[in-house]
């Protein structure tokens, strides 16, 4: 036992000390976080932060006076008795970003409206203006029907639908969830599992091949049993993988903590600015038209909601099952990889053996992607129970909620199978590592499996 720990220590330390390990460990979560946060950050910084004043000139009427609500960055100044052509020449000197010109035909021809500016105005600004004007035109058109208490009626019929998803567990405890987050977790979990099992599994294989080709193995097996060497290597590399994974979890938690404080702060600010124009609208009795258009960035609040939903997930279950399936799945595939490594003389020879091993993994990945669409399908169920594919598929199913008996069954099968595979791999390994120059085949390996002593 003591010797296994010496082997584990060597396998662990030589790998953890490598520069590639350190870089990978630190950069991977940063890259992951960047991938998730970048679109959001871009979205938030999308708007031109510079404060703008826009002159609103209406030709011949004052139908749209104070119709367009001010936002945080843009003030709309309604100018009476000013000619567009005069202002056109010097609106920049006068401190305006642009001129919004509304011609009298607006009610009948919706395109009788111009925004004159030196720069291309941002989409958000245009949406805001057109939205406000559309609402006002609709309201005015409705007014012409002479309906009594129009405002009240409109307020009354206004409905907003948003679906809240609530997941109830066996104990009847409800948590608000988000399908989007579950899908993302399924995707990330399944893919990460695939990557880790493959990455570290093939590290086992390369390690075995290295020992075999450099002939170190013969000296070592004169000191320890081949099985001890194999298990020492597999466990050592598993610890490297776990170290990396735990560092990732902690780094991600750190990044999330930072993101949480900054994102929530921003949300509070938007809430204030959202309320502000609504007050003005209320005064003008234009609440309805403002309700939607005043949402400065609905994506941001959506993001916050998602974020809070993400924090609502059962992280303990997700992480513990992930670690369980990583360890068992890795042990299963790692021992197969070790057996393959022992059977060949160099890495190029591994091809013929790799294919049958890769197929179930790729298949599992495909099923896991399908699981995201339909977590309850029988395909997902069976593949999350069958040990060769369960690590990836089950991890993808967990965020959607899986009955405990299924998890227990899948885990029990997994343990039995990996023990069986380790046992078989050890037999192949024992013979394989000392065989040189013999072209190995499945038939040959089958023979090794039945050798005694």
């Amino acid at each position, binding site marked *: 036992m003591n010797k296994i720990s010496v082997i584990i220590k060597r396998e662990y330390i030589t790998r953890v000390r490598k520069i590639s390990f350190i870089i990978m460990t630190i950069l991977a979560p940063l890259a992951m976080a960047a991938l998730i946060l970048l679109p959001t950050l871009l979205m938030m910084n999308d708007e031109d932060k510079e404060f703008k004043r826009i002159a609103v000139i209406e030709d011949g009427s004052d139908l749209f006076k104070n119709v367009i609500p001010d936002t945080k960055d843009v003030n709309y100044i309604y100018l009476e008795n000013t000619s567009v052509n005069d202002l056109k020449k010097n609106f920049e000197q006068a401190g305006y970003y642009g001129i919004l010109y509304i011609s009298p035909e607006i009610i009948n021809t919706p395109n009788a409206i111009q925004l004159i500016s030196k720069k291309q105005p941002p989409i958000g600004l245009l949406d805001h203006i057109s939205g406000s004007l559309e609402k006002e035109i609709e309201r005015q058109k409705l007014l012409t029907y002479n309906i009594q208490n129009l405002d009240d009626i409109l307020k009354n019929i206004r409905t907003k639908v948003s679906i809240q998803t609530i997941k109830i567990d066996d104990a009847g405890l409800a948590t608000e969830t988000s399908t989007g987050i579950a899908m993302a977790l399924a995707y990330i979990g399944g893919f990460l599992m695939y990557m880790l099992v493959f990455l570290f599994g093939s590290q086992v294989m390369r390690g075995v091949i290295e020992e075999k080709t450099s002939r170190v193995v013969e000296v070592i097996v004169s000191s320890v049993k081949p099985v001890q060497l194999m298990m020492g290597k597999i466990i050592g590399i598993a610890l490297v993988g776990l170290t990396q994974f735990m560092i990732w979890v902690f780094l991600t938690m750190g990044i999330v903590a930072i993101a949480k404080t900054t994102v929530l702060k921003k949300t509070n600010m938007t809430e204030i600015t959202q309320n502000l124009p609504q007050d003005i609208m209320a005064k003008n009795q234009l609440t309805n038209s403002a309700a939607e258009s005043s949402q400065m960035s609905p994506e941001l609040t959506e993001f916050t909601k998602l974020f809070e939903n993400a924090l609502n997930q059962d992280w303990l279950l997700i992480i513990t099952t992930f670690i369980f399936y990583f360890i068992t799945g890795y042990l299963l595939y790692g021992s197969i990889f070790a057996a393959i490594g022992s059977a060949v003389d160099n890495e190029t020879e591994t091809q013929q053996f790799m294919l049958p091993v890769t197929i179930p993994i790729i298949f599992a990945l495909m099923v896991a992607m399908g699981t995201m669409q339909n977590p309850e399908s029988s395909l997902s169920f069976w593949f999350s129970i069958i040990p060769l594919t369960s690590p990836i598929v089950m991890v993808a199913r967990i965020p959607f909620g899986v009955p405990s008996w299924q998890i227990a069954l899948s885990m029990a099968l997994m343990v039995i199978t990996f023990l069986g595979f380790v046992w078989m791999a050890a037999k192949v390994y024992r013979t394989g590592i*000392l065989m040189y120059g013999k072209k190995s085949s499945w038939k040959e390996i089958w023979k090794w499996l039945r050798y005694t002593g």
Partner: protein
Amino acid sequence: MPLFEAKNITKQFGNFTALDNVSISVPEKCIYGLLGPNGAGKTTLIRIINQITGPDSGELFINGKKLIPEDVHTIGYLPEERGLYKKMKVGEQALYFAQLKGLSKAEAIKRLRYWFGKLDMTNWWNKKVEELSKGMQQKVQFITTILHEPRLIIFDEPFTGFDPVNANIIKNEILFLRERGATIIFSTHNMGSVEELCDNITLINKGRTILEGSVDEIRKQWAANEYDLVFRGNVKIEGNGQYNIINQQFDNEKSIIRLKTTGNISTNDILKTVLKSGDLISFNPALPSMNEIFIRVVETRN
């Protein structure tokens, strides 16, 4: 009592018989040669002694007791195909192997200091193995083989890769180890070193023992009434009833003649006869080299 014994070892791989009822008995403090052509089964036997593989039948004894897994701590093994982790530092690596042989870290460091000093390699400690020449790597490997002070050491072709100077250093270290009480099994194709070092040998061919015994006795046995004579100048001798001429050659102003006696004739009688033929410089019983014996035995068996 022999230090190590293997009795009636048989090992098969599928239909191929690698060892067929082979026995060896290695006396204590002996250098025991394990000889045989390529593919004779030497490596399989050595692996069985090291408990890397188990025999199909037969028994192994060390110090009179049955060999058990813990005995790897009292055995040192330098394989023919040797290797080290190329990316690992020399010191760390030597420590690793020592710990696998059951030494504590502190003890291993102490002994490594001694050996690194003795073999003049102190400043290699922090070098990576791939930075060392092949000969240097062999030295490192030699130290890792003997560091745990094994009672039985198995050297498989220990001199390959060494220049003559270092080969001599290693040879002296092997003799020194024997001096200190180690017993050595020595597998090689280099018959010169067998004559020089080995006390006893076993010759294996095709999985069977075909010759065994002490080196001196085997050579005497094969010498069987042959003598080498050297004369100054060109001298010819005719065979008579008492002896036959096996070989005559004239080279470098000397005549070298080998003769074989037919019956019981004393060396003095031979000398009396041949002295008449010319100016005799040397007269020796012709001990065949181990090389000749090896070739002759293997060829007759084939």
